[in-house]
């Protein structure tokens, strides 16, 4: 283990131990890890399993079940494009094609310069002002191709 990995492992252990006593602690711990590190690294599966007295397979199963957890580092910003019906009715399919071409990546990928990751999302609760896009935690409504250009400047 190099120094960076060591530091990461220490951080993961701290986050896991801080909540280990709570009932149903696994999801809150995984969220805490992803919030701090940006993703859930492989080492986290081992450490969290040890801390919660679970098998690695159980923890791995949970990490992979939920779309929100990622196991690889993301770009500096994550762009969540809404693909659900209300946004479809206002041109989300075309916006999705545009975003892929513009960033030159598919969903679940990160741009070569590491600036943006692209994720699909099924509704942001912004359906009266579709199409909707969320960048990290900021939601945008009535997004056109031109507006997307401005947002991702």
């Amino acid at each position, binding site marked *: 283990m190099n120094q960076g990995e060591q530091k990461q492992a220490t951080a993961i252990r701290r986050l896991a131990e801080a909540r280990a006593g709570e009932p149903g*602690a696994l999801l809150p711990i995984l969220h805490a890890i992803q919030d701090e590190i940006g993703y859930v690294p492989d080492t986290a599966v081992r450490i969290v399993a040890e801390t919660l007295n679970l098998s690695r397979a159980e923890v791995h199963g949970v990490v992979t079940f939920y779309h929100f957890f990622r196991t690889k580092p993301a770009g500096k910003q994550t762009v969540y494009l809404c693909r659900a019906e209300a946004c479809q009715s206002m041109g989300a399919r075309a916006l999705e094609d545009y975003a892929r071409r513009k960033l030159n990546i598919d969903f679940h990928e990160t741009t070569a310069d590491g600036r943006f990751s692209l994720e699909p999302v099924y509704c942001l609760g912004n359906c009266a002002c579709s199409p909707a896009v969320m960048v990290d935690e900021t939601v945008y409504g009535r997004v056109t191709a031109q507006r997307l250009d401005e947002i991702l400047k």
Partner: protein
Amino acid sequence: MATSTTVFVPVDTTARSLGADAVAAAIAAEATRRGVSVQVVRNGSRGLYWLEPLVEVVVDGTRMAYGPVAASDVVSLFDANFLSGAKHALALGPTEKIDYLARQTRLTFARVGIIDPLSLDDYRQHGGYRGLANALKMTGEQIVAAVADSGLRGRGGAAFPTGIKWKTVLGAPADQKYVVCNADEGDSGTFADRMIMESDPFVLIEGMTIGGVAVGATKGYVYIRAEYPQAIRTMRTAIETAKAAGYLGAGVQGSQYTFDLEVREAAGAYICGEETSLLESLEGKRGMVRYRPPLPAIKGLFGKPTIINNVMSLASVPVILDKGADFYKNFGSGRSRGTLTIQLTGNIKQGGLIEIAFGVPLREILYDFGGGTATGRPIRAVQSGGPLGAYMHPSQFDTLFDYEKFAAVGAMVGHGGLVVFDDTVDMAEQARFAMEFCAIESCGKCTPCRIGAVRGVEVIDRIRSGENATANLVLLRELCDTMISGSLCALGGMAPFPVMSVLNHFPEDMRARA
């Protein structure tokens, strides 16, 4: 003494998605520049989303509306003297007189958009915590009877009577019981839960507390989808505030009851909105749907008796306990009592939140409130009740909003979401998406859902490319039947409904593309 004018600029996610933060900043800056005293309050949204950002100015005690306001409009608003409620191109008159709002019956949403969401004083001044005060003087049986008598049915989708659920939990002896709020709101075309959490969080806290007092539960969880970061933050802050003020924790309001509340963040799985999957998730597991029985009311979270209800169901309890079961029950139609919060979305000119007594015709919502499509083209289809709901055809628009009346035409009220499409929609593509969505979100427990949905996408693709269309249409119907009869939960069991509605009402689209 210089008096300060109060200006409201919504802090709701949709308002912010259209620039409300910049508007609030511009108003504060312009007031400073002109040396006028203005107090900017960030209220929730009134739900008139096509008018957001909707700015309100208090003039002689009346709130005057301006909207939709862009930051670049702020100087001209000051020039026109909007602080005295003066005329301007964006002026809408007194907010409460705007037809869209004036025609509504706001019971659950009584305070939404009016108060500062995180001000407990505002909450109490506008009728908050009166329901709990009454509940604390009643027995558990009396509270449950009030909820049952009100006729309230679950607003999360299945419309099960809330009082019956609570009665089961009340009657289940246990050392520990729970109240769980389902705030996973995964349906496209819905945001009522988000609005409550962002715009009036204390009403949900109060509703859950009443539930805890009624059935003897001392701990509650609010399970909120990860796609709602602002709702999560607002709920967490509100819970801290309520705790500090003695509304949560040991000895709720000086009573013998204890009730603690915690927010848990979901992780982007639609199936976790299904109640047993949600409970698995809260327990720290994969969100696999459970077999029933046992019911969650008997063996729910961590195997203990659990009330699990949607945000809107729980947020409707305080007004019922405040004004009485009869008050609530007197609104509505047939066996659908009280009000429904309709969320009008998609390709619609005037989208937003409409709380109205059950019994209103769908057409009135689409045209009188909605004003038709945003694109100005004819409405071709409306999906009601989320991704598992049928696409309704214009010939069905006279259906009244009522659980049974919708069911009678093969449609679903569900959580009250309406997604409108104009005549450029390709309904075969919508049918394909219903199957695609089911395939992406299936928990994987049953084959008809897990494999059937993938096959469904393939079969629709074949129909659209003109491959054995007749045989494949038969196959698609058979596949739908298999999913309906062989699925454990409504994801696999109802995903065929939108598909079949396309086959039945829009067959002209279910053929090879030119």
